[in-house]
């Protein structure tokens, strides 16, 4: 269809040309035909006239058979140049003939038109020679048609020339017309093209007042409208884009099959993807466990914790809110994703901090529900976590336990809530006595309706230590003043009065003994505080021969208790790899052996032993006496500083010896055990670890 490719202009030109050509062709043909007819009539007339004239002129000669006359007539006639040949026929054949032999030789055939004559190049006509109604002969002539042909050709040429020129002018005009017309249409076309390519609000100049002008006006109006609509769409889009890219949450849109349609900037960043990357991925590449089917079928629109994969393979914890939507007749799932990794990490860290904290935390909501307590809180109030769970109505459950724990002596006429919200110190009595401080504040200081966070610190130990310290000081002062009272008192009496020799000697003895007691007391006090303060740092623990140390210590103590013996029975063999501080263990042995001797009157027994406890092997030495022993009550106070089972003053001692023993053995990583039945004697055992001790010096 070539026509379709022609421009409007060309079509106009071609159309006009075809019509022009057709009509001109008809005109030329018609003119030529008229000319032909005219010429034809003319030549017919001429041929008839000439032949008739000759027939008339030659009647006599034919009748008379006068050939000479005939020749003369013929010759004079043929002088007329247009006649190509003349032949006169009598009843018996040719009487005379003149003209071109070529034409004469041809058989005669009458022509009724110029066209007939064209076959032999001559217009043939005849006239009968008639006399009185009888035919005597016939005149045949041939006229030249050359001139007529020339006229016709000339006329045709002229007509054709005129037609051609006319066509040229018409073509030129139509070209100019087309140009003028299409020029404005082109403007319209180019403008339309630009609009279609996205140029908005384009206006074209308005010229003239024809239909094209109307079209241009209509175009301008349309372009303006499109411009406005496009501008609105653009600004809507850009507003939408701004919003989408400003939100910190990731937003994605996927088909029901999981193919990603679009994502916002935050989503790209979340998955570590390049924003310029054309999304062709499936959502399952990013969130492998994303259950789209579940979202579609169960309308479960909130997915709490699902793992996402970034481009670099890093795992992120996500929270997703989904919604099914329809765009352009197609169903999509639109999801809002939030990266919970950091929140989770913080949560885990905080959780660990709160779980590890020795201090109790409680978050008390306004509606009296306890939304959080940490493990330390549960343990402070001796609540099994499964008994009072967090969340929901748990106030009554917690307060039951708290009420049971609280020491009513310290907290009278106060409700649990008042105690928790107003008291600064909380005294607990059950199951063990505790002293807690409570601090509290609103979670949101600016909002008085926000939850209260309560912070409990167990200061029991501090309180006990404090109490112990003051008790210790007071006891130490007492213990120092007691021998001092004897020393001061007796010496003053000696100064004041005269005593006989034996009484004075007795008093001197008391003074001396009590001053020795005082010295011993001070020594042990200092030793204990030194050992305690340095927490074993001054200990020189290395592998030593325990057998020798035990034997030497026994001999040493035996010397002070004349005539009595410490009998050693190594029930298990002496270990060769026991690590200890020789001086300190000597002190332990000396204290325990002295006690055994002091509180009995017989020999004492020393046994070795071994045991394993919690995978650790211990070597033990037991010192057994068969003396007065201790009541269970006395035994329970053994090791308390300055505690002395016999306070009669008759047995020397500071009341610090066992404390010292316990301290030294404990620093070695060992332990002490005391058992007794009143009146049946006493067994003191100390265990030292056989495993390599951290204090060992190579």
């Amino acid at each position, binding site marked *: 269809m070539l026509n379709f490719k022609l421009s409007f202009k060309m079509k106009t030109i071609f159309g006009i040309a075809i019509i022009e050509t057709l009509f001109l062709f008809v005109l030329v043909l018609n003119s030529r035909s008229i000319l032909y007819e005219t010429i034809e009539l003319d030549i017919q007339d001429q041929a008839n006239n000439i032949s008739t004239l000759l027939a008339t002129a030659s009647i006599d000669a034919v009748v008379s058979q006068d050939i000479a006359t005939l020749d003369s007539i013929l010759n004079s006639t043929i002088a007329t140049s247009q006649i190509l040949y003349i032949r006169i026929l009598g009843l018996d054949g040719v009487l005379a003939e003149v003209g071109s032999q070529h034409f004469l030789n041809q058989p005669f055939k009458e022509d009724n038109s110029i066209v007939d004559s064209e076959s032999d190049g001559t217009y043939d006509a005849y006239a009968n020679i008639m006399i009185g109604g009888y035919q005597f002969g016939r005149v045949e002539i041939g006229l030249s048609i050359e001139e007529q042909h020339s006229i016709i050709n000339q006329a045709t040429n002229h007509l054709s020339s005129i037609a051609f020129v006319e066509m040229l002018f018409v073509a030129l005009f139509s070209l100019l017309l087309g140009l003028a017309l299409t020029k404005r249409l082109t403007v319209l076309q180019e403008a339309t093209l630009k609009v279609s390519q996205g140029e908005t609000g384009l206006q074209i100049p308005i010229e003239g007042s024809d239909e094209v002008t109307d079209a241009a006006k209509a175009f301008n109006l349309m372009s303006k409208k499109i411009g406005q609509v496009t501008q609105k769409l653009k600004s809507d889009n850009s507003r939408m884009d701004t919003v989408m890219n400003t939100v910190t949450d990731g937003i994605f849109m996927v088909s029901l099959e999981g193919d990603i349609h679009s994502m916002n900037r935050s989503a790209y960043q979340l998955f570590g993807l390049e924003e310029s990357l054309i999304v062709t991925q499936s959502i399952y590449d990013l969130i492998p466990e994303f259950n789209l089917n579940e979202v579609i079928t169960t309308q479960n629109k909130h997915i709490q914790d699902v793992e996402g994969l970034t481009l670099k393979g890093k795992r992120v914890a996500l929270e997703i809110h989904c919604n099914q939507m329809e765009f352009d007749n197609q169903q999509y799932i639109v999801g809002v994703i939030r990266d919970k990794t950091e929140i989770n990490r913080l949560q885990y860290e905080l959780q660990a901090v709160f779980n590890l904290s020795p201090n109790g935390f409680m978050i008390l909501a306004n509606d009296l529900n306890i939304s959080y307590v940490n493990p330390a809180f549960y343990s402070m109030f001796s609540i099994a976590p499964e008994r009072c769970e967090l969340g929901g109505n748990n106030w009554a459950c917690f307060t039951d336990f708290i009420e049971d724990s609280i020491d009513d002596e310290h907290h009278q006429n106060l409700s649990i809530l008042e105690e928790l919200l107003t008291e600064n110190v909380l005294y607990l009595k059950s199951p063990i006595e505790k002293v807690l401080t409570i601090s509290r504040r609103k979670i949101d200081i600016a909002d008085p309706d926000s939850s209260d966070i309560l912070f409990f610190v167990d200061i029991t130990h501090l309180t006990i230590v404090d109490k112990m310290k003051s008790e210790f000081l007071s006891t130490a002062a*007492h213990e120092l003043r*007691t021998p001092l009272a*004897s020393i001061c*008192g*007796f010496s*003053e*009496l000696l100064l004041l009065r005269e005593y006989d020799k034996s009484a004075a000697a007795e008093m001197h003895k*008391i003074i001396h003994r009590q001053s020795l007691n005082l010295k011993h007391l001070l020594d042990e006090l200092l030793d204990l505080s030194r050992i305690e303060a340095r927490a074993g740092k001054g200990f020189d623990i290395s592998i030593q021969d325990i057998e020798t140390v035990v034997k030497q210590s026994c001999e040493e103590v035996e010397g002070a208790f004349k005539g009595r013996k410490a009998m050693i029975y190594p029930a298990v063999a002496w270990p060769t790899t026991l690590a200890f501080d020789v001086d300190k263990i000597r002190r332990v042995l000396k204290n325990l052996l002295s006690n055994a001797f002091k509180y009995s009157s017989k020999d004492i027994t020393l046994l070795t032993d071994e045991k394993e406890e919690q995978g650790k092997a211990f070597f033990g030495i037991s010192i057994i006496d068969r003396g007065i022993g201790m009541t269970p009550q006395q035994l329970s106070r053994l090791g308390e500083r300055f505690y002395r089972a016999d306070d*009669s003053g008759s047995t020397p001692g500071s009341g610090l010896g066992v404390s010292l023993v316990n301290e030294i053995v404990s620093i070695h990583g060992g332990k002490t055990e005391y058992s007794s039945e009143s009146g049946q004697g006493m067994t003191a055992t100390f265990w030292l670890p056989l495993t390599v001790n951290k204090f060992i010096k190579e």
Partner: protein
Amino acid sequence: MNKKRVLIVDDQGELRKLVRMTLEFGGYELHEAGYGERALELATVIKPDLVILDVMMPGEIDGYQVCEQLKKGTFEKVPYVILLTAKGQASDLQEGDRVGADDYLIKPFSPLQLIDTVKLALQ
């Protein structure tokens, strides 16, 4: 005139000896007890005029309790009580006041001071 009876209560024998030797020439009838229960037993028998009482004593009852019973108990004759204490802190003295003690001596005490205090008490 009967000798004034003085009961010396202390868990330490040497201390009792010191008090006895200090007061032995004062013309008193001296009695000794080594612990609280014994002191109360003796007090019901001898009905002392004065009790010199150590505060810190082993056993079920300490000096304060002994004093309280002597002063507020059902004794015909309420004795004068001098507390003998090694502590001497304000709180101890307050406790002494509470149980009705009449005087204090703080260890170590001077025998002369003891003599004066006893003399004053028994006038």
